[in-house]
């Protein structure tokens, strides 16, 4: 009797009792599904942490300090701040830079038509999707790359000045002394980078502009130094010595720490749910054992016939063991798929864009655990089946 025959026989006997097999499987499905769900979410958190802490190959990490001024237009960091930080933290930091802001930059003294107003600018590296354009033409990639002095205006903003927003097309907008020609009108959308009043090419905006002030500072922490502790020290230093310390406050948003605490919670949760799943699997395993014992006693005749026509005890043992394992493994795989589904749905509902991640080793875990349950709880009934006394059966 080869293995494919054994599989076929086992499959057939499971199908012969569909309802019983399905009910017995449920426990395994629940156990495996819950473990896979929590593991997939845990994986997601870990992956998120890795991508957030973009550790470069040399072991450097970058962090950001932001300045929030009491007045909107205040730019917090100055070149002298950078010089001081560089001097003070020369060992821990390899680089200190202004970060070029690119969205919702506040600008004042903008002249649009006859009016002088303030507004917000978002800088583009890639063209806006055409679907957002309302009138006129969109900025093209070559507009962005070739320093074309063209601009897009949000329709709300244009309406305020020209009454009909399409009238704005072709007029000039002067920002920071540079005159831009209005090429098109777009629909602004809140909570995206298209919520600003103007869209301009990033290259054009910063062209010829010397950065001497910014609201964001980018630090590169040298290898072997804790990124968050160094950054915290820098913040502390700035609070004492920063040039604009009286005009606003410095803050370091430690996303890593938050993710780390989520990850710790996930770890605890994983242990907790694994323990519950373990109990579930244990009970399910006893269910499997129970079912197998019933099956063995129901099929005493079959065992006798098989032994009489030449099956060895080993053949019988394998047949029943395989039945138990097939039952638990199909439960395990079903549970794996369900867990995958559940974790994907849950990940839609949790913040920080954590995606459920299922790896091949998770599959192996589900497969391994369920087959182990099958073997552990199937071996006793299978042994009992194979040890049946042939003469007693056939009498």
């Amino acid at each position, binding site marked *: 009797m080869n293995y494919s*025959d054994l599989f076929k026989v086992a499959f*057939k006997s499971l199908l012969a009792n569909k309802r019983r097999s399905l009910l017995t499987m449920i426990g395994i499905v629940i156990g495996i599904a819950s473990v896979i769900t929590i593991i997939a979410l845990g994986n997601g958190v870990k992956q998120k942490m890795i991508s957030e802490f973009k550790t470069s190959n040399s072991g450097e990490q970058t962090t950001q300090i932001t300045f929030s001024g009491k007045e909107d237009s205040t730019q917090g960091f100055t070149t002298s701040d950078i010089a001081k930080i560089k001097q003070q933290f020369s060992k821990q930091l390899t680089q200190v830079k202004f970060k070029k802001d690119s969205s919702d930059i506040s600008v004042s003294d903008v002249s649009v038509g006859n009016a002088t107003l303030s507004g917000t600018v978002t800088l583009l590296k890639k063209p806006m999707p055409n679907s957002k354009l309302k009138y006129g033409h969109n900025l093209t990639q070559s507009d962005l790359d070739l320093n074309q002095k063209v601009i897009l205006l949000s329709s709300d903003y244009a309406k305020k000045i020209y009454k009909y927003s399409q009238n704005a097309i072709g007029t000039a907008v002067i920002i920071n002394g540079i005159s831009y020609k209005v090429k098109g009108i777009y629909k602004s959308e809140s909570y995206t980078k298209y919520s600003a009043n103007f869209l301009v090419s990033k290259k054009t905006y910063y062209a010829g502009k010397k950065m001497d002030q910014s609201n964001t500072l980018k630090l590169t922490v040298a290898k072997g130094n804790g990124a968050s502790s160094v950054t915290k020290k820098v913040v502390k230093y700035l609070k004492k010595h920063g040039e604009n310390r009286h005009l606003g406050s410095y803050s370091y948003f430690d996303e890593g720490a938050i993710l780390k605490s989520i990850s710790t919670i996930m770890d605890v949760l994983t242990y907790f749910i694994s323990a519950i799943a373990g109990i579930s699997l244990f009970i399910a395993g006893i269910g499997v054992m129970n079912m197998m014992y019933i099956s063995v006693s129901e099929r005493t005749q079959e065992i006798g016939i*098989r032994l009489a*026509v*030449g099956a060895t005890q080993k053949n019988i043992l394998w047949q029943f063991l395989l039945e138990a394992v097939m039952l638990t493994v199909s439960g395990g795989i079903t549970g794996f798929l369900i867990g995958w589904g559940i974790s994907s749905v849950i990940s839609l509902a949790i913040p920080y864009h954590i995606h459920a991640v299922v790896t091949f080793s998770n599959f192996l875990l589900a497969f391994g655990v369920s087959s182990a349950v099958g073997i552990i709880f199937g071996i006793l009934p299978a042994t009992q089946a194979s040890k049946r006394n042939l*003469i007693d059966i*056939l009498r």
Partner: protein
Amino acid sequence: MISLKNINKYYKQGEQEVHILHDITLDIQQGEFVGIMGQSGSGKSTLINIIGFLDREYKGDYVFKEDNIVHYTNKKFTYLRNKNVGFVFQNFKLINNLSVAENVALPLMYAGVKKKEVTQRVSEVLEKVGLGGYEKSIPSQLSGGQQQRVSIARAIVGNPTFLIADEPTGALDSQTSAEIMALFKQLNTLNHTTIIIVTHDPNVGKQMDRLLTILDGRLISDTEGE
């Protein structure tokens, strides 16, 4: 071919030890058509279990094809059974969730015969017992006589050295009984298969070439048939 010498068999029944077979000595040659008769409880089933390699807990010697099998290992013993004996039981003993063809194929499957050969051989054998074309049927759809034919097909599919039939007509009406007996006779004359049939029906016993009678665990007569 089959040679039993001084076989004694004891049963433990509670505290008591029952002596079920007394000094059975008997030889059966290749191609014989043998009947074993006796009342229920006489020990005839016990005897054929021993002859058919199902039971090996007895005292005495069993020489099969000039080989004393008393000292065989379990594995070798199972192999011996698979290769040499075909069983036909009173209540057919077919596996109900398998098709006719799968039931008949069982001995070949356990013997490790290739699938193609199995299919071919099963069809041949079913044809021989008059059930050609019934491969895909389920045993419960068949009549008693047909089920017994399936059981015979299963017994002969592996070309065994001898067949053992325990009350093969016990659950059948007289018309079907006659058909089944004719089939056994045909197998014996055409294929020279050794056949051992256990019965308590004197009408069946009469049709045998040789008739052994057992009473209270003792072989009391060994006669040539008419």
